[in-house]
């Protein structure tokens, strides 16, 4: 649930932002893309530490009292996967033949219509980017442990449960949960693929 919300939020931010970056020329575009791509591999615990310090009561956003709640886990995951989705969307858009955009403009399309057309052309790759982002949010454990605190019945996710149960030596339960986790991932991917083929 948490990773579904964070993935939707991240995609909703990344799709317009990615188009914005792709369709505009500005100084520092290449460095910006390099930074985004570097952030693909930012360790979850680094984001976790950052979010922890921001939202701890002694931190700048401590007044919100969000630490150790599902909300802060969503915020952390959004921060974690935006670079991934954004970067992949930018490269998805770059993969579309420039002629498409030029033709659309010459046929009298407005700029907005042109952007929409390119997005539509690139929809498979955009969807793939979203699936990647979901996968990262769904599978990560470091961030969830650090800012969620693994509170039973509140901020405990499948991955943090596996971590806890393994550390308690209950390997059977962990394996079962791992299988469930894979099944859910499979179901979501099949659904998204169906959507893709339509």
């Amino acid at each position, binding site marked *: 649930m948490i990773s579904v*919300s964070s993935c*939707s*939020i991240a*995609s*909703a*931010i990344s*799709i*317009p932002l990615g188009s914005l970056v792709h369709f505009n020329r500005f100084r520092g575009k290449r460095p910006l893309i390099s930074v985004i791509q570097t952030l693909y591999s930012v360790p979850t615990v680094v984001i976790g530490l950052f979010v922890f310090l921001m939202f*701890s*009561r*002694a*931190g700048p956003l*401590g007044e*919100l*009292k*969000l*630490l*150790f*709640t*599902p*909300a802060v886990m*969503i*915020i952390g995951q959004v921060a974690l996967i935006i670079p991934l989705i954004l970067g992949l969307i930018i490269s998805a858009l770059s993969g579309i033949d420039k002629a498409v955009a030029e033709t659309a403009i010459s046929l009298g399309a407005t700029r907005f*219509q042109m952007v*929409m*057309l390119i*997005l*539509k052309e690139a929809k498979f790759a955009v969807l793939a980017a979203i699936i990647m982002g979901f996968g990262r949010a769904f599978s990560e454990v470091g961030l969830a442990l650090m800012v969620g*605190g*693994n*509170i*039973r019945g*509140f901020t405990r996710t499948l991955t943090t449960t596996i971590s806890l149960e393994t*550390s*308690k*030596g209950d390997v059977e339960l962990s394996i079962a949960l791992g299988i469930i986790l894979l099944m859910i991932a499979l179901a979501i991917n099949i659904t998204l693929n169906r959507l893709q083929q339509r």
Partner: protein
Amino acid sequence: MKKRAILGIVIAVIISLLVVASGCAATGNQAQGTAPLPPKERVQVATTTSLYDTGLWGYLEPMFEEEYDVELDILYAGTGIALEYGRRGDVDVLTVHSKAQELQYVAEGHGIERVPFAYNYFLIVGPEADPAGIKGMTPEDALKNLFESASASFISRGDGSGTHTMEKTLWSAAGYEYEEVQNAGAWYVEAGRGMGPTLLMAGEMQGYTLTDMGTFVTFKGQTALVPIVEEGSILLNVYSVIAGNPEMNSSINSEMANNMVEFLTSATIQELIGDYGVEEYGLVLFNPCAGAEPQS
């Protein structure tokens, strides 16, 4: 045809924007308190891993929740991290076990008072074969032997927890600087994990480790480790509860923190703590000691 497709995409974008908006709204709601259910007050307690890994907190949690009609959030962490959560005001109350650190915490004004509520003993456990031949020695001599022979592994918590602090105390009682021990060689392993995982690791590596009685008994079946050294008053392990000081952090739920102190030291709960695990393991895991410092 094209137009419809474009329309479709526009709608999709609008929907996704709505998702953002509702997502933000949802986070906004959560900021004010809780999940969709009728909002209940939440109380946060940070506990040392040993009280969690033994299952004691899982057993007491519903009772506290019922008595005071709150949601209790239990964060398990080593005493070092638990104290840090407390200093930052992220939790309302602590249950920890490292006297010197606790006294300092209270002296800094972060905690109201250190109230002991249970105790047991630390012990050094290891493989049955006892490769270092330290069985039955005093804790100090046992560590000296481990250091000198440098052959059998010793798995340290290495996480700044109460048990880790006790281990450092033992090394210094044995006459070693802790840094010296850390650099002594591959036999000294710093796990950096909770008590349960450290015991499992010691079991896998056939090494020795320092553990509290409660966690050891709970994990005994999975590790095949046996008690090696369990004599000596230095091994006393006292658990105490400390309510956060609202003067240091206005966000601390002082009322519930004080309720927790009262709850843990109440006669009923003290009896339940004393009986916890006795039937299952045939051993006393925790000795109740409401409010008084036990004298080994």
